[in-house]
Structure formats: C-alpha cells, structure tokens
C-alpha cells in the first residue's frame, strides 16, 4: 500500500520534470528567429513597392508578405530601426517622436498615412517642406527597419514585438506601450501651419 503510493509519487514527479523539460524546449523553439542576413534578391525586391500617385499608401512587394511582414513584427528589426533613428539624426527634427522642427509621430495624425509603404517612401525619397531623402545614405533594408520603428512609436495599438531598451533616459512611454495612444487622447492636433497644406 505504502510502496504503491511512493511509486505513484515518483511517477508523478518524473512526468512533471519531463513536462517541464519539454515545455522549456518548446518555448525555446517558439523563439522568434533572427534573420541577420536577408537574401540579396529579397533585399532588392524591397525597393519594388508601388506607391499611389498622390504619394499616400500603396502596396509593398509580394515578397514582403511572404516573409510575414518582418519589418513590422520582428523585434530585432524594430530594435535596429530604433538605433538607426538615433544614428541618422531623426531626433534632430522629430525629437523622441513627438516632433520639433518636423512633424510628430505621436499626435494621431499621419500626413501621408500610417502604411509602411508611405513611411518608407517618405524616408527614401523625402517629402516637401524639409524631409530629406535618405536614398543615398541608407540601404533599402535600413529604410524599412527605420520605417517599422517609426510606425511602431506612432501605432494606435501596441505591438507584440518590442524594441530594445533605451540607452538614454526615458522621455515618453516606451514603444511597446503604444505611446501615441497615451499622448493623442485629446484628439489629433491641427496641422502646424509651417508644415504646409495638408495633402
């Protein structure tokens, strides 16, 4: 009787340990894979998005969907985008995302719409009223990474993927808490007269 109970206990313990091991293995397997080297043909395809003739919205290349929209959903790409935001001096005009000389990303108002294609086009080709073109300064992959980050800080709902932590002090709610939603609750602000006519 007593012996039977110890055997049952032991079996229970063993299966619990086994389940724990398998669970850990499963979690490791679930980890988001990190694509450090995108295939050159896929990279070349990133330039082949189609923009609407008014410069707002459009269609990303087919391969972007085949890769499961990596520049919007992948934590590594978003983190790289965050570093590019610093390295390429975006903060000089856009501050921490709330704008300064340039427009804010967090006021709920996207001059050219919140689609990736619009943001990529804005960075690559520049926009009127002061946004420079980064075509010759960044690779197309870097532009997509940066665009993914810009879309993340201005997103209306928080993404599951988070960027890396801040190296400097925090000046606004962090990216994975949808800072835009917290900051534009009062409704979108009017277009700054210096930004020119709303497109």
């Amino acid at each position, binding site marked *: 009787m007593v012996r039977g109970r110890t055997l049952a206990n032991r079996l229970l313990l063993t299966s619990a340990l086994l389940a724990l091991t398998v669970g850990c293995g499963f979690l490791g397997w679930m980890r988001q894979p*990190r694509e*450090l*080297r*995108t295939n*050159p043909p896929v*990279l*070349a395809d990133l330039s082949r998005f189609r923009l609407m003739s008014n410069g707002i919205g459009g269609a990303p290349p087919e391969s972007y969907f085949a890769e499961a929209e990596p520049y919007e959903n992948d934590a590594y790409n978003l983190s*790289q985008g965050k*570093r590019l935001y610093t*390295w*390429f001096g975006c903060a000089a005009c856009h501050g921490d995302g709330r704008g300064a000389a340039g427009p804010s990303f967090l006021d709920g108002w996207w001059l050219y719409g919140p689609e990736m294609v619009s943001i990529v086009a804005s960075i690559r080709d520049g926009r009127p009223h002061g946004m420079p073109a980064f075509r*010759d*300064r*960044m*690779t197309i*992959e*870097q532009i997509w990474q940066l665009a993914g980050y810009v879309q993340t800080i201005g997103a209306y709902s928080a993404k599951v993927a988070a960027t890396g932590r801040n*190296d400097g002090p925090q000046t606004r709610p962090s990216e994975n808490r949808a800072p835009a939603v917290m900051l534009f609750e009062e409704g979108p602000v009017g277009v700054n007269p210096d930004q020119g006519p709303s497109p």
Partner: protein
Amino acid sequence: MRMSPIIWMSTIAIISGCTGNQSAINPKGAPAIHIAHLMSGIVAVCTLVWLLVMVMLVWALLRKRSDAGEQARERGLTTTVSAAVGATAVIIAGMTIASFYTTRDIGIPGEAALTITVRGQQWWWQVIYADPDPALTFQTANEIHIPVGRDVHVQLESTDVVHSFWVPSLAGKQDLVPGRTNSLLLRAERPGIYRGQCAEFCGLQHTHMAMMVIAEDPESFERWAVAQRGNSVNPGKPDAVAGQVAFIAKPCAACHTVRGTPAMGTTGPDLTHVGSRKTIAAGLLETTRGSLAAWIADPQTLKPGNNMPMVPLTSVELKNISAYMESLK
C-alpha cells in the same frame, strides 16, 4: 610510463597558449608585471599552505593515539587550533596588503605622457587620440599605438552595453560602462604587438571584438601619430579614384569618415587610414584587398549581427571601393 597522447597534446596546447602576445603570465608591461608578481606570490603561498595541510592530514591519520590524559590532549588541541587560526589571519592579512599595494602600483599616475579615449561599441573599439588643439585630434579603430616605456592613461567609455578592456600582456582588466568614464594605466616595457579582447560578454559578436596594441619606440610612435593626423591620401590609381567616387555616392559615407573627403559619418569606424591597420572588423581579418572586398560584399556572413549593412554594389564598384580602402594608408 607512456603518456596518453590526449593528455600530452592538451598539455602542449595549454602551455603554448600562455606564451603568446595575449598572456597574463608572460607580462610585458609594468602593470601586468605587478599583477603577475601578485598572482605568483598568492599561488606560492596557497600551494605551501595546501602542502602543509596535506602533510598534517596524513600525519593525523597515521599517528598513534597519544597516551596523555584528557586535559593534556585538550590543551594541545587548543594550542594547535589557536596557532592555525593565527597563521590564517596573518596570511590573509599579508595577501590583502600585497593586493592593496599592487592596486596602488597599477593606479593612474598624476601625469601621464599620453591620454587616449577608448570607446567600446558593439562590436569594435573606437580609439580617440584627443589633443587640446582639435586639428591635432585623430581617431582610429581596433588598433592602439603607444610609445614604449611611457605611462599611457586610457579613458574607457561605452556607447551601448558593458564591455571590458583587457590586454593581458600589458595591464589588468577594466570595464567600459555606459554613462561613465573608467581609467586604466597602460605601459609597455618592450616593443611588440599585443592582442587584447573584450572580456565582458557584450552580445552576438563578443568573440570578434579584439584589438591590437602596438608598442613602439617613441620616435616611431611620433611618426605614426603625425601620419594619422594627416588627411587621407589622395588615391593615385584609376580604380582607387573610381572607388572614392563610389564610396562617397553610396551609403558608405553616411556612417564612415574619411578625412579630406565629404565622407563624415560617425556611426562606424573612422576609415581615414584604414589601409595602415593590421586588421579589419575588430581583429576578424587581416587587412588585404581581398579581405576588404569580402567584408564589404557580405559583412553579415563574416560577422553576423554587426551593424554594417550589405550595401548593394556592382562587381566593378566593389573592386574599386576595396582598392580605395586598401590605398588609404
């Protein structure tokens, strides 16, 4: 007795690993020599203590039970234990004092002949030779030149995560912590090329974050510094000229500086005299035209995760840019 070949070979491997240009027990600089002395002193004392304990243990196991009375035995025991505790206290105090003096000796002297700022980045070393006159300030990467027999004050900073600066043959280990400046004294007693390595896990390419410290006599050092202060040399050969044009037109110039050209990016290493350095990509490859081309063509295969993107180039552009890089002596 015949030694097993595995033991034999691993012994050779271990011993040969201690004699190279990256070894704390083959010191070539004053701070490293102080540390090596402390290390051998502590090892010698501990070995002696261990041997004594072992001898005592064997003696205690083998000795006959003494015939002395309970009280005498108790008294003997008290004496032995008190002597052992006293000896332990003296030895530990001695080692503490020795370690204190060593730390004092490897500290920063009031006046150093040269002050260098080393900034750790994922995954390379930015080396700044600052001068009160901005025109004399210059930068290099992953290669530090120092004059032999002079005290060099190294200011350690980090831009991203904690790194650790360790050139075992010349000095101890010191962390580079974001947001603060740490100091280290570097001094080479003999000319040579000493290898250093990041000694604090700092991410994916921690392994490939090495640097070379080149100690040379003060005259050669001064010659080198004068050459480094100068702007980049103008490319002479046609392929290097075309390479310079491509370098400035392509995204390369957005991250790299080549002084004397419009390339003024500061995210990546300063390439003004990249052709004169021994290695590229923080000790990953020797600087040759072929390795430069391989690195530029596909940095993510050679050092996955580093921040240099794969810039789409035609084969002619790649050939020209690597010729240009090689010409930047």
